[in-house]
């Protein structure tokens, strides 16, 4: 279970959000750009240090004090695939595996590679692959160590709808299979709805609504939410 209260000062407001997600469940964070959604995820991941609050994952305290990144046991994917440019695709995917497994292709790695259609790229330099391929490699790399918590911060931005549909289907299937807890941020309501039945709506660093998608769509709590959910 993810049990977090994230407090982080940032201009022009302070993010202060309570987030509880049951083990193996999914939760979406929805809101306008700059509402503080990514800050919440970055604080949970450890990429940023909160100014207050507490973060616990399955009874283990991540903050305070901020424990080192390598002890957090979570996957964090953003718009920036952040692949290691000096390593090949296969080496990137196996980076997070313990040393004995790093040299072998396990059934699980084969499944990731096959489903994400990375087989032909296994020995390719990551400098030579496209943005969409890089995002798939980053997803495979993140899931390879089977993290108990997965944080997705708009990882589908800029990808074509066909690829996004495939990636969404793969993530949903793997969540069912691996049972990881999922917290996802996206400005696209359709993507969030596909990944998470429950949504926390954030405005200026505060929770303004927490509930099922259908409730939020039909009864948005604020005028801004209503505008964000309105069709183009």
């Amino acid at each position, binding site marked *: 279970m993810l049990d977090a209260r994230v407090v982080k000062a940032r201009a022009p407001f302070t993010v202060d959000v309570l987030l509880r997600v049951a083990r193996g469940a999914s939760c979406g964070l929805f809101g306008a750009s700059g509402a503080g959604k990514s800050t919440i995820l970055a604080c949970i991941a*450890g990429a940023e240090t909160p100014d207050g609050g507490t973060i616990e994952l399955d009874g283990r305290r991540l903050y305070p004090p901020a424990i*080192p990144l390598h002890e957090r046991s979570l996957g964090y994917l953003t718009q*920036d695939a*952040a692949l290691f*440019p*000096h390593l090949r695709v296969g080496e990137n995917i196996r980076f997070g595996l313990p040393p004995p497994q790093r040299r072998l292709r396990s059934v699980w790695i084969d499944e990731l590679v096959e489903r994400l259609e990375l087989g032909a790229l296994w020995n390719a330099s990551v400098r030579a692959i496209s943005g969409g391929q890089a995002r798939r490699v980053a997803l495979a790399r993140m899931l390879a160590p089977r993290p108990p918590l997965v944080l997705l911060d708009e990882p589908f931005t800029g990808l074509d709808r066909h690829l996004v549909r495939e990636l969404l289907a793969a993530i949903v299937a793997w969540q069912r299979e691996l049972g990881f807890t999922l917290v996802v941020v996206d400005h696209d309501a359709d993507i969030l709805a596909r990944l998470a039945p429950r949504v926390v709506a954030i405005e200026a660093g505060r929770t303004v609504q927490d509930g099922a998608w259908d409730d939020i769509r039909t009864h948005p709590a604020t005028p801004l939410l209503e505008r964000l959910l309105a069709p183009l």
Partner: protein
Amino acid sequence: MLLWRAATVLFAIVLLYPLAGLLVPVGAWRWGGSATLDAVRVSLVLTAIAMIVVVAVGTPMALFVARATARERLAWQAILLVSVLVPPLALGILITLAFGPHALGAYLDRVGLKMTNTPFAFVVTQVYVSIGYYILGAIAALDAVPTGLAVQAGLLGADRWSTFWRVTFPLARLGFTVALSLAWVRALTEFGAVVVTAYYPAGMPVAIWTGLENFGLPAVMPLLVVFLLTALPLPWLAHVFAQRRIARA
């Protein structure tokens, strides 16, 4: 554009023109014998020792400064710049005074370390003149590695040490080499500070100067060539490779 290119070629010729001095007839070159060899050995061995100290001390310092907060980083970089900007002759005099018998030298003497005209003084001076260049270069190399990569490496289970060896260092390697090559050439060619703190044992710069004073150009030309060959290629190659990497990226 053509005129511009021609002007640049002319500039390059003017820039490299001093090297033509090697071809100017100055009389038959005379190899100075064992004294010349000693100068080469002193310079290469003691500079190598100084570089080991520079890398061993400078690398952790560079990592610390690169990861410090913006304000702290400014303060550290200002301190490093002082070490880079102090004129060498002034630095030599200051080192002699600060490590002299009326200051730290009294304590160093007790453990057998003399700070005047000894290999120890030579190495300490070289470290002082070069470590700032190395650390500032290493910080720039570390800055060129996106922080998101270290975050991902950490979340994938790599501790700080492992992240450095598996991600940061391989990507910053060339920058570290450039920084080290700058420190190497700075230390190897140092004259102003070393001539004050360690006239003996004479390294190449001091040997060239004394040879020129006492025996004239023919006596120093062979050592001058060795001096150029030991000072130029490493930084030159490091920079060429760095530029190639940048051009390919």
